[in-house]
């Protein structure tokens, strides 16, 4: 889950970069940048969840 989370962070960033390069229309560009940030947010949720401490390790 941790690796997938970090990969999603990178994937979201690449989506943002692609939006800058590929779209000239401001609205399309903004939409894809927001989509990239959405992917990053999902990745961040996964990374945070993967770092929760298992119950048996709490002391």
């Amino acid at each position, binding site marked *: 889950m941790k690796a997938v989370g*970090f990969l999603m*962070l*990178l994937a*979201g*960033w*690449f989506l*943002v970069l692609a939006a*800058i*390069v*590929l779209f000239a229309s*401001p609205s399309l*560009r*903004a939409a894809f*940048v*927001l989509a*990239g*940030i959405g992917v*990053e947010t999902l*990745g*961040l949720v996964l990374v*945070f969840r993967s*770092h*929760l*401490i298992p*119950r*048996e390790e*709490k*002391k």
Partner: protein
Amino acid sequence: MPAPRLTEVTTVACLFFIFLVPLAAAGLALMNVGLGRSRSAGHMMMASLSALAVAALAYFVCGFSWQGFIGSPAHLLNISGKSWNWIAAEPFFFRKFSFDGSPGSVAALFQIFCVGFAALIPLGSGADRWRLRASCLSTGILAALTYPLFAHWVWGGGWLAQLGVIYGIGRGFLDVGGAGSIQVLGGLTALAVTWILGPRRGKYSADGMAPAIPGHNTVLVLFGCVLALVGWIGLNSAGAILFAGSELSGAALIAINTMLAASASALTAAFITKIRFGKPDASLTANGWVGGLVASSASCAFVSPAEAVVIGSIAGAIVIFSIDWLELRMEVDDPGGSVSVHAVGGIWGLLALGVFGQFQRPVLNVAGDSLPAAINGIATGQWLAQLIGVATLVGFVLPLTYGVNRLLNRFYPFRVSVEGERQGMDLHELGAGAYPEFVTHTDEFLPR
């Protein structure tokens, strides 16, 4: 590519502002000491000093050569016919660099303090369990790689700064005082370090409780806040002059906005903690104060004082709720509040510039030959430029800093032994306590 010029008076004033910056580092170091345990106080101060030293040397060796300055030689990447400036190409060890009062040499001085400041931020999150040598290694990587790379993109005329010139997105990503380059970068490194280290022993129990481990010296924490204010005024003013071409006359507005943002943020934090706990919490109020300073860094030169108050107030609320959420829900044990104050507060500050920023005159954040385009170009969509910068920090800098620190941790474990943590970092790593005349934690050395 010609770099922007500074008049003699502006250079002198800029140097004065830069000499204030180490006070911000001193303030942050004192806060980290006060928010940690007494048995690790000396260790924390030693780690802070070591981080400043390692950061300065690593930055001297290769950091500045990869960061550069606006107009300095750089490697370009051609994407769809547009040149993306992605890393500087200065020689190592400041070679071929003349210290003649040029903007580049003044920027090098400014940066050598800024990189040390950024390196102090993760220390707060690793308090009471991060080994000294491991923190020095991590600092070396931050100063030699992570910081220069992102700082070049923002302050060295890199692709984030060029978004306005090349793609017409606002004035490019703007961050005059380092809310992103210093604070968010340091805060995200702090998050990575916290994840790698894990929580302090006894922080999270199996029954789901997370008892508070209070800081040992509130006076140090609050005094650190005052020192940080002075340093931050220098940081924001010098950054605005060097990286946005602000006039010297704008320094008064920058100082006022910095002070107002910190004040509003601290009072908001005090008010929220009063409502929630019945009495204002000193350490959370201090975190609110610094959160306001952090949030002011991006936009201090481009907003009115009233807007700075709004930005600071929101920063104070965000920082307090973020500290709670990270500690209780996400089980991120961050004794200094570094992640919430610097990463979350900084991200809010960067976005706030996109919302509130007003630009009365051109922003000179790119090289000289691009200036006409920057001045005449369409300048809408600043919010989008700020979003792209934040997306780069979260989507690129966080995985990079986590990966590098995780790799370091594999070869040289970051976390102190169980016995060392129980004994305290002072005795275990330095061989002497910070407060030898006081008998504290008498049960520490009894067998359990």
